[in-house]
C-alpha cells in the first residue's frame, strides 16, 4: 500500500481524483488539502510516499511546497505527480524529478500509468542505497533515463526503457513504444548520444534498437542482415554495425 496525499484547491477536482484513486488497490489515501500551507503541514505530519499536487493553488504555488520540503535534508521527500490544466510547467516539474505530469482532464488509464511510474520511483528510493549516492550516480551517468516532450497535446515523461526502437525520418525520429509511436523533431544522432550504449544500439544509419527487445539477428539469403524484435518487427542492419551486435549477443 502506498500512503498518498492529494492536494488541489478545487473541490470537484479532489472529488474526481479521490474516486479514481479508490479504484486503485495499492493507493491508500491518508489526507487531502486545498492550500499550499495545508499541504505542507499535512505532508510533514503524515510523511506520505506519494503526493498528487495541483500546481496552481491558493497561497504559493506547488513548486514552493517542493522547495520548502527539500530544505530539510532528513525529511523523506514524497514522490510527486503534478496535476494541472496548464502545460507550461512541465519542464520545471521535470527538473524537480516529478514522477509524472498529468494534464486535466485525464482518464483513469492515464492515471494508472502515472501510478505505475510513481511506484517504480518509490521502489528505487526504498532500496538500501542512500539517496545521496543515487544522486551521485545520476550525476556521473550522462545518459538519459527519461525524455520529455509534447505529443498530441500532452506532456510525456517517457522512460527510455519503454522505447522499443527508434527510426529516423529525415529531420525527425519516430520513437516506437509498445503501443504507440511518437514523431519528434530531433536528429537521430543527437538522440543516440543521449542513450546509454549498454542499452541501445545503432544498427543502421536510420535506426536504433533497445537491446532488451531484440530477439535475434539473422542473415537473409540475400546476404542482408536484419534485427528481429520480440514483437516480430524487422529492422535492416548495416554491415558496419554487425560486429558490435554479435559481441553483445555472445555476452548475453
Amino acid at each position, binding site marked *: 500500500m502506498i500512503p498518498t496525499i492529494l492536494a488541489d484547491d478545487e473541490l470537484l477536482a479532489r472529488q474526481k481524483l479521490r474516486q479514481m484513486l479508490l479504484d486503485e488497490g495499492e493507493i491508500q489515501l491518508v489526507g487531502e488539502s486545498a492550500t499550499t500551507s495545508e499541504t505542507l503541514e499535512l505532508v510533514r505530519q503524515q510523511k506520505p510516499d506519494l503526493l498528487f499536487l495541483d500546481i496552481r493553488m491558493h497561497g504559493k504555488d506547488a513548486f514552493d511546497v517542493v522547495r520548502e520540503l527539500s530544505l530539510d535534508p532528513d525529511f523523506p521527500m514524497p514522490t510527486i505527480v503534478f496535476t494541472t490544466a496548464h502545460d507550461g510547467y512541465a519542464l520545471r516539474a521535470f527538473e524537480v524529478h516529478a514522477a509524472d505530469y498529468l494534464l486535466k482532464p485525464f482518464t483513469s488509464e492515464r492515471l494508472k500509468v502515472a501510478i505505475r511510474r510513481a511506484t517504480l520511483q518509490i521502489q528505487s528510493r526504498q532500496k538500501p542505497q542512500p539517496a545521496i549516492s543515487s544522486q551521485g550516480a545520476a550525476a556521473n551517468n550522462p545518459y538519459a533515463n527519461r525524455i*520529455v516532450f509534447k505529443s498530441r497535446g*500532452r506532456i510525456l515523461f517517457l522512460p527510455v526503457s519503454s522505447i522499443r526502437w527508434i527510426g529516423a525520418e529525415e529531420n525527425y525520429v519516430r520513437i516506437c513504444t509498445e503501443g504507440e509511436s511518437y514523431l519528434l523533431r530531433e536528429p537521430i544522432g543527437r538522440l543516440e548520444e543521449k542513450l546509454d550504449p549498454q542499452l541501445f544500439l545503432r544498427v543502421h544509419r536510420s535506426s536504433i534498437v533497445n537491446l532488451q527487445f531484440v530477439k535475434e539477428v539473422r542473415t537473409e539469403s540475400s546476404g542482408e542482415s536484419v534485427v528481429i524484435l520480440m514483437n516480430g518487427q524487422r529492422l535492416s542492419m548495416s554491415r558496419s554495425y554487425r560486429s558490435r551486435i554479435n559481441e553483445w549477443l555472445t555476452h548475453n
Partner: protein
Amino acid sequence: MRDSEQNKRGSTLLSFMNPAVFLGTGALLGAVFALQEWVEVRQMSHHINFTLLLAAWGVQYLLWALICWVLWRFFGTKLQRISWFWAIVALLPFSILLSVAEEMVWVLCFPNLPLWMPHMEYWSRVLFQLRAELADGLVIFWCAFFLFRGAGYYQRFREKEAAASKLEVQLANARLNAMRANLNPHFLFNTLNSISSLMRSDVRAADVMLEQFSSLLRICLERGEAQLISLRDEMEFNEMYMAMQDKRFDGRICQEILVQPELHDALVPAMILQPILENAYRHGLSYVSGTGLLKIEARKENAHVRLNVLNSGIGLNPERPSDPDNHNLGLVNVQDRLRLHYGENQSFSISEVAPTRVLVSITLPLQLCENSPQLLAEYGA
C-alpha cells in the same frame, strides 16, 4: 464592395480622357488664340474678319486635339512606358514630322491664307506657315506627351493603392476564416454532444473522449493565429481527430496514414484536412454498416505536395439525402483557403475512383518550414 469602388475610381481617370474632352480643349484654345490675335490686329488699327480667325485657329487646335486623342487612344500606354532614351531618339523626329504634317493639312484647308500677301504656291505657303508655327506644334506635342506620362504615373499610383487595400481585405478575411477553421464550431459542438450522449451510457468512454478533446483544444490554442503549420503538426492533429472518430465508429474503420518522411516539415494551411476527414465520415463512412477504409496519403510531386484522402463509403451519390446547411460547406471552405493562400498554384478535386471509393485530392506548392516548429526534447534522469 470595396473592390468595385476601387475599380470605379480607377476608371474615372480613363473616362476623363475621352474624345469630347480633347476636342473641347482644342476648341477652347483655338477660340482663345483667335481672340488674342483679333485684339492685337485691332490695336494695330487693322480690320479683320473674326469668323475667319476663329476658323483658322479653331481648325489648328482641333487638328491637334484629334492627333492627341489618337495618340492617347492607340499609343497611350506605349507613350507612358517609353524610356527617356527612346523618347529623345524616336519621338523627337516623330514630333517634328507630325507638326509638319499637321501644318500641311491646315494649309490645305485654308488656301486663301495668309492674308495681305501675294498669292503663293502650296509648298511656299507650307514653309511660310512652318516658320511661324513649327515651334508651337512641338510645344503642343510635348505638353501632351508629359500630360500622358503624368496620367500614367497617377493611374499606376491609384492601382497600387487599390491593390494594397484589396490585399489587406483579403488578409483580414483569410485570418478570419483561419480562426473559424481552427475552432470549427461544427466540430466543437458535435464532439461536446457526443460526450454528453456517452455520459449516459458509458462514463469511461466519455472520459476518454473528453481527454482527447481537451488535447485537441490545447493544440488549437497553442497554434494561435498561425496559418501555415508543418505537415507533422497537421497530421498529429488529424491522428487525434481520427482516434476520436474511431471511438464513435467502434473501430470499424481501418485508418491508414502514409506520409513521405521528407514532407514532415512541409507547410500546409492549419486544419486543411480536418473538414475533408469530417466529410468522409459524415457523408461516406457513416452510411456503411461493415468495415470501412480511410486512407490519408502525403506525396511529393516535383515542387508540389499532394494530399489524398480516400474513403470507402457509399460513393458520390447525388441523390443521397443531405442537409443543405452543412453539406460540403467544409469543402468549400477548404477550397477558399487554398485559393487565398496559393492563388492558382494549387488544386482541389473530389472524384469517385471506384464504385463506393471517393478520393479528395489537393495539391499545394512545397514550402518547408525553416525554423524548428517544436521544442526539442529534453533529456534527464
